[in-house]
């Protein structure tokens, strides 16, 4: 199927969202709460676009592109005056929520907003409440964090604000957060996140660490991966692979091959 974006036709696949096409084609639309690893959510409302269709008798509407499934001959406009106004409004509010967050400042600036018209939040942190962290944690099967509190005081938190028992320290939440709000620290082979400490698995041969013991144990137990796969790091496993192959190789092949060439 094909959809039209800003006057040009693009291929689209059954079942995907308008935003998927925009991203694939490199058409710039801000979208802070959408990530391919999780289901769309429609929280930030920045990805708004205008849609219409030749069969709709002139009807047009603004929708969140991350939640709108493509259909054949859909006509999309990403930068109408209305859409830009909507995005400005959202950014104005976001800037009040997160006045000190570089990612938000930059995006707001792109839309011509230097300071918010609203009262900036006191003691503001960098969380924009996009829910990506909680969604990815759930998607991975851990469910360690969630949104707590109401209204103004809503925040991403661990149960009872204590060290989360279900967290494995995988850092999916850290890596997915669009504003780098979630902090962690690796000191030696100890990782600290959400107020909990984890030991990283140390390579038996060189000491390099990749993931936490808890994460490895989860994968061993639930994903049917042999436990010894995690004993050695990737570098040492490549070296081990080479050594194992060495025993299998018929090294004479070289001389034979050379002989063939010289004949």
């Amino acid at each position, binding site marked *: 199927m094909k959809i039209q974006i800003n006057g040009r036709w693009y291929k689209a696949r059954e079942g995907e969202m308008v935003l998927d096409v925009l991203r694939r084609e490199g058409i710039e639309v801000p979208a802070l709460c959408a990530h391919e690893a999780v289901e769309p959510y429609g929280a930030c409302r920045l990805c708004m676009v205008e849609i219409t269709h030749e069969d709709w008798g002139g009807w047009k509407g603004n929708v969140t592109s991350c939640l709108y499934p493509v259909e054949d001959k859909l006509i999309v406009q990403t930068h109408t005056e209305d859409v830009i106004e909507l995005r400005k409004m959202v950014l104005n509010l976001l800037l009040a929520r997160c006045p000190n967050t570089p990612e938000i400042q930059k995006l707001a600036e792109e839309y011509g907003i230097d300071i918010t018209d609203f009262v900036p939040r006191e003691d503001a942190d960098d969380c924009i409440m996009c829910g990506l962290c909680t969604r990815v944690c759930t998607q991975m099967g851990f469910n360690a964090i969630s949104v707590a509190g109401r209204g103004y005081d809503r925040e991403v938190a661990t149960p009872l604000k204590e060290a989360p028992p279900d967290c494995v320290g995988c850092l*999916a939440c850290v890596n997915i957060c669009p504003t780098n709000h979630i902090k962690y620290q690796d000191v030696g082979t100890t990782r600290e996140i959400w107020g909990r400490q984890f030991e990283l698995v140390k390579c038996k041969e060189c000491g390099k660490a990749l993931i936490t013991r808890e994460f490895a144990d989860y*994968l061993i137990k639930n994903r049917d991966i042999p436990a010894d796969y995690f004993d050695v790091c*990737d570098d040492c496993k490549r070296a081990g*692979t080479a050594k194992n192959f060495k025993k299998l190789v018929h090294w004479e092949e070289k001389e034979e091959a050379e002989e063939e060439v010289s004949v």
Partner: protein
Amino acid sequence: MTKRFMVRPALCIGCRTCELACSLTHQEGKTPGRTRIYPLAVGKEKWVPVACLQCDDPACVKSCLVDALRMNEELGYIELLQERCIKCRACVAACPFGCSLIDEEQEIIVKCDLCEGNPACARFCPTKALEYK
């Protein structure tokens, strides 16, 4: 029939042309990417090129909890969907051959994609130690 990636270590002369070809082919940002193939010395005048074996029962795919890795049936390789990857490193830790890699420079996880059907390493290998046919 999909083609097969063949490695004949006996023919490898350790020239590392494959590494260079791989890096330059996988240019994610402005700088060359991390090579996905490693001709490793295993003795005097002996090298074994180590790269992803595109396993039938891949530990990397099993370890990825957000389905960012999957078998590309058409081209016969295990594909890493960059937009999905949340860089948890499970696959890096799980691959028994050490062939899921961290590209520190680009801050992404990478693995061999057989150049989506035309591997540069095999094309540039001067001795046919690597072939795709």
